[in-house]
């Protein structure tokens, strides 16, 4: 087992990893930018190194400085969390080359799966159901128009290197296709340095379902069932739950098998997520693989009882999985609300000084946050300041606990989206479930008079 791990991240996920390390009795090294010196992740860690100024690109994403910090601190391994360097194949590769374990999949896995078009082609070849679309990146408008014609409008233009909604365009009519491709290519080139795009059929009311996977270096692949992440806006998830109200046991089992097949087809190891899109008829399609631990992993931890971060660390240290597929059961229901520092109506960030921060407690409530009883939300980083997870024996109990938890949560000094979550929880469509990925947009349109 590792003796010392550097956590190449900040915020709640850095605390989450430090907590796992403490439980495994592994020393921790925090990195931080010069404005984060007093942050909770720095105070929780055994050691800390300042790696640059506030801007993430110069500190948390600064590969030479992060690796120098790892070297001078003498760590065996680096946990990247999510975001920042978590899906950077180059970073993983350099870690491998200097003999520091990257806690995640190999750099080849990241490279293959982060190219959405390539991943799509790979999965198609392995018999995984993918969304109807182009074979690889599109080449010119003429062939694209023919493909789109065949798929039927609306279609979606997606950047191969894309993520988080960037480099995507929905096209409803043939005459808009050329413009959409050009602007998606430009955006992708600017954002990711690679302008290649591909086409897929666009579903108007899909559900976003994802399967958590853990795979060890001995070839064992186990899935942890699904999370339903359909409550999202502009591809930013804000509520996740498990199990999904959209799945019955038959479909759940089949999707789980496909998810395992996806990961086995690339000989994956460590934590990953297989994302599916499901249409209104219950048909599902492979979308992509996220090659990292995700924000919403806690939902799965709560319903399965397994500590996914500790398992990531054990796998990276060469240990086989501590469970088999049959040991993983969904016990009850869990739901997560991402608490963001933002205007609850306009959903724009609201950084500033938090003058009071008091988290909910009691049965069935888990809070992951890096906020102290007071603190600062910096405009430099992500606006998510806490994850509130509620557990119940069934969905109604989980929802009732979440409502209570939101009511108990006190955040003063800045705005937060707690009131938005509260209103969503009161929405009859949401309560009845399931909802599609367009639910939140419609909800916001209806509720902002």
């Amino acid at each position, binding site marked *: 087992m590792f003796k010392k791990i550097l956590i190449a991240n900040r915020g709640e996920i850095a605390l989450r990893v430090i907590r796992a390390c403490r439980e495994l009795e592994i020393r921790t090294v925090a990195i931080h930018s*010069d404005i984060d010196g007093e942050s909770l992740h720095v105070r929780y860690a055994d050691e800390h190194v300042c*790696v640059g*100024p506030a801007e993430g690109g110069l500190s948390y994403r600064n590969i030479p*400085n992060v690796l120098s910090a790892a070297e001078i601190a003498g760590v065996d391994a680096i946990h990247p969390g999510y975001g920042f360097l978590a899906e950077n194949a180059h970073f993983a590769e350099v870690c491998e080359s200097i003999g520091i374990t990257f806690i995640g999949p190999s750099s080849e896995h990241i490279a293959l799966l982060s190219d959405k078009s390539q991943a799509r082609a790979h999965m198609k070849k392995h018999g995984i159901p993918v969304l109807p679309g182009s074979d690889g990146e599109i080449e010119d408008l003429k062939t694209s128009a023919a493909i789109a014609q065949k798929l039927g409008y609306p279609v979606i233009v997606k950047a191969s290197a894309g993520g988080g909604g960037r480099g995507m365009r929905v096209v409803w009519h043939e005459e808009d296709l050329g413009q959409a491709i050009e602007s998606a290519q430009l955006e992708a080139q600017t954002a990711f340095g690679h302008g290649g795009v591909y086409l897929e059929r666009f579903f108007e009311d899909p559900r976003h379902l994802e399967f958590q996977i853990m795979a060890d270096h001995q070839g064992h692949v186990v899935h942890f069932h699904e999370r339903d992440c359909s409550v999202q806006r502009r591809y930013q998830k804000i509520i996740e739950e498990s199990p999904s109200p959209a799945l019955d046991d038959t479909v759940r089992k089949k999707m789980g098998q496909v998810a395992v097949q996806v990961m086995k087809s690339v000989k994956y190891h460590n934590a990953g997520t297989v994302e599916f899109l499901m249409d209104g008829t219950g048909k599902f399609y492979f979308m992509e693989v996220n090659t990292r631990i995700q924000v919403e992993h806690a939902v799965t931890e709560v319903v399965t009882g397994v500590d996914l971060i500790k398992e990531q660390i054990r796998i990276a240290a060469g240990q086989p999985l501590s469970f088999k597929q049959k040991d993983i059961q969904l016990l009850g229901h869990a739901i997560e609300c991402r608490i963001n520092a933002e205007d609850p109506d306009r959903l724009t960030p609201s950084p500033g000084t938090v003058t009071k921060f008091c988290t909910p407690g009691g049965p069935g409530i888990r809070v992951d946050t890096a906020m102290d*009883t*007071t603190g*600062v939300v910096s405009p430099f980083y992500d606006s998510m300041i806490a994850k509130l997870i509620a557990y119940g024996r069934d969905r109604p109990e989980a929802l009732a606990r979440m409502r209570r938890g939101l009511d108990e949560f006190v955040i003063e000094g800045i705005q937060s989206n707690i009131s938005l979550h509260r209103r969503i929880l009161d929405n009859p469509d949401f309560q009845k479930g399931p909802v599609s990925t367009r639910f939140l947009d419609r909800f916001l349109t209806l509720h902002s008079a």
Partner: protein
Amino acid sequence: MPDSSRREIEDLVELLNLYHLTELELEKKGVRIRVRRDPAPTFASPAVDVSKIAKSLSPSVSESSPQPVESSQFLTITSPIVGTFYRSSSPDADPYVEEGALVTKGQVLCIIEAMKLMNEIEAEADGKVVKILVESMTPVEFGQPLFLIDPQ
């Protein structure tokens, strides 16, 4: 409120700030002020560095890391990267500079090794090396003060 009493309060606040106190507590009949700083248990909050908060809220601020209070009249050379600090180019070579030496802008003061690369750190101004703050072969982090220079 008259300016005089306002100043008193400001003085109090300044002390609070200077000594990293966290509390101005009112006790009993509301007429006693207790200035208090609790010893920090595990994970307890260190005092908030107000300058940092201010900085975090104003993206335009870009000056480098905090300087020791006693050296405010000197120029502090800080580490621009994370790595290992060396005072000389090789174990056998003489140090680039000693305390008391006069240096000119652009002169190499030390090397910081990062990822097997040797990065030369230069003087940012003419002046005298007042203090070398780090031992040779020591790890340094971003923004860590390395030299105090008295600009001349």
